[in-house]
């Protein structure tokens, strides 16, 4: 059941479980993206997302999230070399970048609200907020996972092999959240 016993596929059991979960998330986010694609032109009334989307601002937050994936793999690389302090540092950097991204989303959304585009303005705005909102919630959970790993790293012995596996699993989740954003950024923000 742990990495110590032989598994029928040769793949670590927890890694297999995480990939199965991530596979199911494709269906979750796919539904939300489909929803957006269906409704993006439906703005009979009220302001619609295309008028308000701030491409420069969102490009910067996309960059931030991409860099957080880099810091995540560097954290993992550091741990495989048993450099506990570097691993912890990179984990904190990832969490900070993720929190920055979420902060940017919150700022962007509050601006939209001020301009009169809310969750319930029209289906286009609703599907925009639901899609990006659920993504933001996933990022937030990811930040909590990262901070939990940092917390665990302060125990006697630091992040052990077992925890190293946890770090890799959190990393997979984190990168997944990043690739969902890669799709959202293009489909929602960049494609006219």
């Amino acid at each position, binding site marked *: 059941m742990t990495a110590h016993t032989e598994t029928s596929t040769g793949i670590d059991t927890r890694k297999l479980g995480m990939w199965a979960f991530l*596979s199911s998330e*494709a*269906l979750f986010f796919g539904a939300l993206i*489909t929803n957006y694609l269906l409704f993006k032109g439906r703005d009979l009334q009220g302001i619609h997302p295309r008028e308000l989307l701030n491409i420069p601002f969102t490009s910067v937050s996309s*960059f931030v999230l991409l860099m957080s*994936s880099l810091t995540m793999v*560097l954290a993992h690389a550091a741990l495989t070399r048993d450099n506990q302090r570097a691993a912890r540092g990179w984990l904190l950097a990832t969490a900070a970048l993720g929190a920055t991204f979420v902060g940017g989303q919150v700022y962007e959304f509050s601006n939209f609200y001020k301009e009169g585009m809310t969750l319930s303005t029209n289906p286009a705005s609703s599907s925009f907020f639901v899609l990006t909102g659920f993504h933001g919630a996933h990022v937030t959970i990811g930040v909590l996972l990262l901070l939990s790993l940092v917390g665990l790293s302060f125990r006697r012995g630091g992040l052990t092999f077992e925890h190293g596996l946890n770090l890799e699993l959190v990393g997979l989740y984190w990168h997944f959240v990043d690739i969902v954003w*890669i*799709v959202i950024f293009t489909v929602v923000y960049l494609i*006219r």
Partner: protein
Amino acid sequence: MDSAKPAHPSPRQYVTIAGILVVLTALEVSLFYLNIGGINTPALIVLMLLKFTLVVAFYMHLRYESGFLRRLFAAGLAVASVLYFIVLATFYSRG
């Protein structure tokens, strides 16, 4: 780890990939502003898929993992793509 110890990119390679991702993103944003007509959307999609693949293959390590994991993840993507494409198609073919 388990039976076969997979290869890992080095930290330097990770940074290189990050650099490519930044360049691709810059290209995407440029396409948004240039808005060169009908080719814009397919080009953006291609760039998006490139970024997606880089992160999945190298950062998520799928290139070095067992084919079983690749197929597992691909299955979710495939099912989602096909199903949601059909749903959208039914809305656009109403009649």
